[in-house]
């Protein structure tokens, strides 16, 4: 589904992402882990065609993110961190706008289907500015999956949410993955979430990919570790101590 080869992004002298080589399988829930400023958001921005790589390449379903960016945009759904949406518009009006931009044929039918899936139908005609953060995040996910993308990119989807909101989002993502077979690529630094939802993980630090494995393999390789947190710190700490 997603393959990157030596994907690199430089800002003048600063290398935000350094030769990223990554493969995400079809139908996987991939957790991209790293500390703040590790290069997660920059990687995600390149994969969602928002910024151009300095060198290297990335393909989604065989389409190059630079050369075939329109086809790539058609395949992906994206939820950035802390999205606010248009506060003065209702949930439906927001979704109609984004649905039309994605050229969804029967927008209203898709909106009803998606809101039903997210158990959000009673809030459809309320203005987004009246929503809590958790509700806004749900509408954010709704706009990202409105055109039924093959791959869903999420940047810290549960950041700042209360435990109930976090659980709700987690269940929604599992549902999308199970019912539609959507591949999910999730930036996060919440290790507890990764263990509960992800099938595969990648760890990035200072722009370099340290590891990319299935969660089960990783646990197998670090048999002595009691938790993912321990695994994470032994990988990241090992590199930082070198």
């Amino acid at each position, binding site marked *: 589904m997603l393959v990157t080869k030596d994907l690199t992004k430089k*800002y003048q002298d600063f290398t935000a992402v350094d030769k990223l080589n990554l493969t995400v399988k079809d139908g996987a829930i991939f957790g991209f882990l790293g500390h703040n400023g590790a290069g997660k*958001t*920059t990687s995600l*921005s390149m994969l*969602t*065609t*928002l*910024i*151009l790589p300095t060198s290297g390449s990335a393909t989604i379903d065989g389409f190059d993110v630079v050369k075939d960016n*329109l086809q790539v*945009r*058609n395949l*992906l759904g*994206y939820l*950035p961190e*802390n*999205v*606010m*949406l*248009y*506060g*003065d518009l209702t949930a439906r009006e927001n979704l109609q*706008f*984004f649905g*039309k*931009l*994605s*050229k969804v044929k029967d927008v209203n039918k898709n909106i009803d289907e998606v809101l039903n899936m997210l158990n959000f139908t009673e809030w459809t005609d309320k203005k987004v500015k009246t929503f809590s953060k958790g509700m806004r995040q749900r509408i954010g996910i709704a*706009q990202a999956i409105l055109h039924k993308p093959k791959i869903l990119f999420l940047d810290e989807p549960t950041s700042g949410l209360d435990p109930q909101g976090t659980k709700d989002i987690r269940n929604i993502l599992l549902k999308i993955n199970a019912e539609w077979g959507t591949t999910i690529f999730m930036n996060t630094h919440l290790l507890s979430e990764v263990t509960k939802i992800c099938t595969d993980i990648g760890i990035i630090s200072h722009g370099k990919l340290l590891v990319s494995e299935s969660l089960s393999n990783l646990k197998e390789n670090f048999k002595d570790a009691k938790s993912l947190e321990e695994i994470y710190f032994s990988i990241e700490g090992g590199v930082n101590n070198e």
Partner: protein
Amino acid sequence: MSPMLVVIKKEITDALKNKLFLIILGMLLLLTIVSVVLGSYQVKVSLDSYNQSISFLKSLGKTTFPAAPNLNPLSSSKSFVNYIGLLGALLAMVLGNASVVKEKRSGTLKLILSRQIFRDTFLNGKVIGNMILLFAITFVTSIITLVSVVVISSAPISSGDIVRMFLFFLMSFLYMTFFLVLGIFLAVLIPNGNKALLITVIIWLVISFILPQIGDTMDMDNQLPGGFFSSMGMNKADTQKVLDHFKFYETTRDGIEQMSPTKHYERVGFALLNIKPGFEQNTALEVLSIKWIDVLGLLAPSIILWLLAYMVFLKRENIYQE
């Protein structure tokens, strides 16, 4: 529906929900209606007074009558030039600024640009959507003016007058477009939306009030009420001879005025409306060709600012700097 049309449609519906925009629009329309109705009424009073005089002379058995006063029905739009200079510019600036700032505040730019729309299409959609709004506003005001002049003043209005009036409103549209694009450009350039609006307003004050005021103050002919040269009993040729001695001074003064789109708008507007004497015998298109520098002065800055906004927006791929 193409993505650009979706953006255009959203810009228009958003503006119609923007309270500040609606308040300024309401004031502009109200002032336009009041000024045009009063102007048209004044023309009607002059016309009625002339007709009464003719009837009176006829009743006295006179056969020769004084010539009809030079009634200019277009002059009823004179105040509109000032309202557009003030409120029209303000309206366009608010539209331009809000159009970009709302995306920054709602964090929606990334969502939009991850869809099947490119940065240039998105920016074009915003500019075109707001230009359609400004065009609709000037078109409605031109119809109000035309109807008021015809119905209230009862003054004869020729097809040439109608063309002049519509061209005048076209110039008003171009003038407002300049401030729209200025608002968009500065909002794209400056990360803080409020700061961008403040700087837009400061630039508006400079080019709309300060520069024309400097030009007027430096104008030798403005040093005495009624004109310095005419009070000295000098004709046009003599005046020119005097001015030839102050070529550098005059070029500087004119250069300062040329920097102001407001002055260009005023010059071409007053010529089209026959408020400035000397253009009565010209057709509307002849007036535009005589005043081409002013038309260019309205068009060129908008095109340059549009291109600059393009360059800044298309180049801005740094995700931390929407």
